[in-house]
């Protein structure tokens, strides 16, 4: 009987040790996490790199041709085509929606789909710079990266307005999902201009010429 008591108390100890629920504390490890990102300027730069494939295009990333002059972007007054030019659509499409961040364009409209992924991306960038990164970087760097973010937002709205005319404008990344705020075209154009001007004023002088200088197509 004494042996049994020893064994059972041993088992009890094992039970208690193994019952520690710390073992469950195993968060996903592989990717960066929004909650702990935005620590310094490098983080901001790496995030900004994601915009280049969509805005300063040659072959986008890998072998995409959206917006690449003559390859994807050829339906315009600047080029002519020896073949019959493709037709405009004769009936309304069932959907133009997309949420993909792979650069893509409607060739006949030389602009994006009804895709707000890039608006979300730049809004999120602005939000994180303002609310998370601001305290960790110099005011010079803050102005620079805010300028970059607002430039990209302006760029995307410029594209959307060109294709669709009237588009809902979102100031912040999340709170306005169910709150479509329509602004007229005039407002949006002024907004676009304001954002791009802001960028020109605020970006560090050495980058003043153009953002593509930072990265070149590989």
């Amino acid at each position, binding site marked *: 009987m004494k042996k*049994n008591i020893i*064994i*059972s108390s041993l*088992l009890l100890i*094992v*039970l208690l040790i*193994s*019952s520690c*629920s710390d*073992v*469950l*504390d*195993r*968060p*996903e*490890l*592989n*990717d*960066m*996490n*929004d*909650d702990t*990102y935005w620590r310094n300027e490098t*983080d901001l730069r*790496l*995030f900004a*790199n*994601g915009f*280049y*494939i969509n805005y300063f295009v040659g*072959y*986008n*990333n*890998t*072998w995409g041709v959206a917006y690449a002059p003559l390859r994807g972007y050829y339906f315009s007054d600047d080029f002519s085509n020896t073949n019959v030019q493709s037709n405009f659509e*004769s009936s309304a499409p069932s959907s133009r*929606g*997309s*949420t993909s*961040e792979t650069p893509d364009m409607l060739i006949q409209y030389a602009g994006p789909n*009804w*895709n*707000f*992924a*890039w*608006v*979300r*991306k730049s*809004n*999120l960038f602005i939000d994180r710079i303002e609310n998370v990164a601001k305290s960790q970087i110099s005011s010079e760097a803050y102005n620079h990266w805010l300028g970059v973010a607002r430039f990209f937002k302006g760029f995307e709205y410029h594209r959307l307005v060109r294709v669709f005319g009237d588009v*809902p404008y*979102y100031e912040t990344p999340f709170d306005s*999902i*169910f709150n*479509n705020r329509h602004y007229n075209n005039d407002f949006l154009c002024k907004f676009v201009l304001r954002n791009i001007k802001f960028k020109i004023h605020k970006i560090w002088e050495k980058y003043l010429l153009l953002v593509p200088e*930072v*990265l*070149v*197509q*590989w």
Partner: protein
Amino acid sequence: LVNITDNWVVDLDFTNANETFINNRLGTRYTALNSWGGALPLTDAEGNRIYVNDQGTPVPSTTPNALPAYKLSLTEYTAHGANPDHIYRNVLNGVTNTLNIYTTYNLKLKEDHAFKFMLGMNRVTYDAKSNWSQKTDLADIVNPQFGKAVGTMTSGGNTFWEAQLGYFGRINYAFRDRYLLEGNLRYDGSSKFPSRLWWRFFPSVSAGWRVTEEAWMEWITPVVSSMKLRGSWGVIGDQTVPSGLYAPSMSTSQTMWLDASGAKAVAVGTPAAITRDITWQDLENTNLGVDLYFLNNTLGVVFDVYRRDTKNMIVPGEGVSFTFGAGAPKGNFGSLRTEGWDLSVDYNYRFKNGLGINAMATLSDAVTTIMKYGDTNSIDGWYEGKKYGEIWGYRTDRLYQESDFVRDSNGELQKIVLTANESQKYAGRTVNKLSDANGKPVYQAFLQNSSNFFFGPGDVKFVDLNGDGEIDAGSRLLDDHGDLEIIGNSTPRFEYGLRLGADWHGVDASVFIQGVGSRQIWGVGFLTTPGFHASDGAMPQAIAGDFWKPDRTDAFYPAPYNLAGSNTGNNMQVQSKYLLDMSYTRIKNVTIGYSFPSSLMNKVMVNNLRVYLSLENFFTFDNLRGLPIDPEVISGYSMFNETNYNLGRTGVGTPTFKSGSVGLQINF
């Protein structure tokens, strides 16, 4: 295993499993003929063009009907470029540690009441690391090795870890083996969820009543030898989802842009749109059953009715518009219910003359319904009350014939532009004028999906189900679906099986028949879609020999039109007539065997000698009108790719094999 007292037992087991997974992918460059295009002119040794007649025999170019000959070009596959030749290796090493401890205590009171108490825990951890690397440009294509490749190197890796911890208690009670009760309570935790949502309780209970054990049921035992009623209800948790669904993770990728130093720039992506509160999915199971055995256990009937609810299912939220800028975040928003029943009957009997027969029949059916999935009422979405697998389509009336149309003075079909008088919704579209001999015609302008397609003789006429004088799909909403209706369901219903066997003095025979009572799919691909693509190069004779033409007006399939790789549109709108009826009966197996008498065999030191003939899948009865596809096929499913094999085309995966075998079984 420790016996503390006679009726108190403690079990402990610990398992450590180590798995290694290695995936080697060798993409060797090779040159082969290109049969897809780019044919080259065929010339003789002097460079003169060769001409052939319609038999393929070379003839002088001046021969009537001579054709210039071509040959296939040579193409280098996985050449330099977007996807060059390479060597790739992915290695994963995983360790699973499983610890189960439980203790059981049996208690018997006054012979009548038997209790069993159980208390335990289990703990599972999984840790894995993987890494892959790839190097392009093989210098030696015969023996591809990392050391023999000279191109770009890429690599990556992942770390996975997860854990589950659970405690459980169970009480069993049996009263004279007559009334059986069981209660369970689990308390489970999983690392897949945010810490405040790790833990959940999951209860379950079950009860059984062996009616034939009752004293007042004894009179029935000559007929009903055993009868048991069963019932159970329980909830268990499901955590088989990826880790980190609740984490706004940002993936890192290399872009094709160079930074100031000339290295490829790295970009960190947009955080995923997520719901922070991801927790257990609940599987709630309710089951009622009866086991009946008649005539000294020769005939058995087992019947079960069940309902399985999957609650808090992790699905994307609904009502998220495109202007959100990301796919709808996933959360515990969904719920679905499966209701079904199983019936099985088996019979065994041996006659006095040595003939034994046995039979087993099964029949089952289940329907899954979406109970909750956001607030959509689109017939293409997961609206509440949707039966899983249902197919919406038009109801086919017949094929249009010459008499339906009006020809102009040149003998051409007369084209008109619809006015509001002819079609309220689709005025302005061009159609072939329909004869109004049988009242006001209903135009199908909405279904003319191609700019050069106009419904004419030999094309499909649909039924105007809602009688509004238009054939269309409305807004594809539950309260406005135009002329669409539910025309079928791709879930197999009424699955049945029958096994018959007999043996007599060493001769044995058995047949196994299996089938599905009802299943429909809308096919995709050249094997099932008439006119799928002009460049397919082949089509089943069932279609090629039975499409509409002016001298075959009673054809099954409509006049041909090239759908250019689509399985819907124009004539081939999803519709009742061309929906594939996938019900079937298949004789899965027929076996005949003979075992030599053991008295004879013992003399040659053999215990058992049997010869047999077996036929697998030799006979299939289907309702596919001769289309060369297997009735068990699932579009896009094969052993190589379970969702999009061969772009999801129907019937192009590996079919069920037919096999016949003759065999000899010897036991020494």
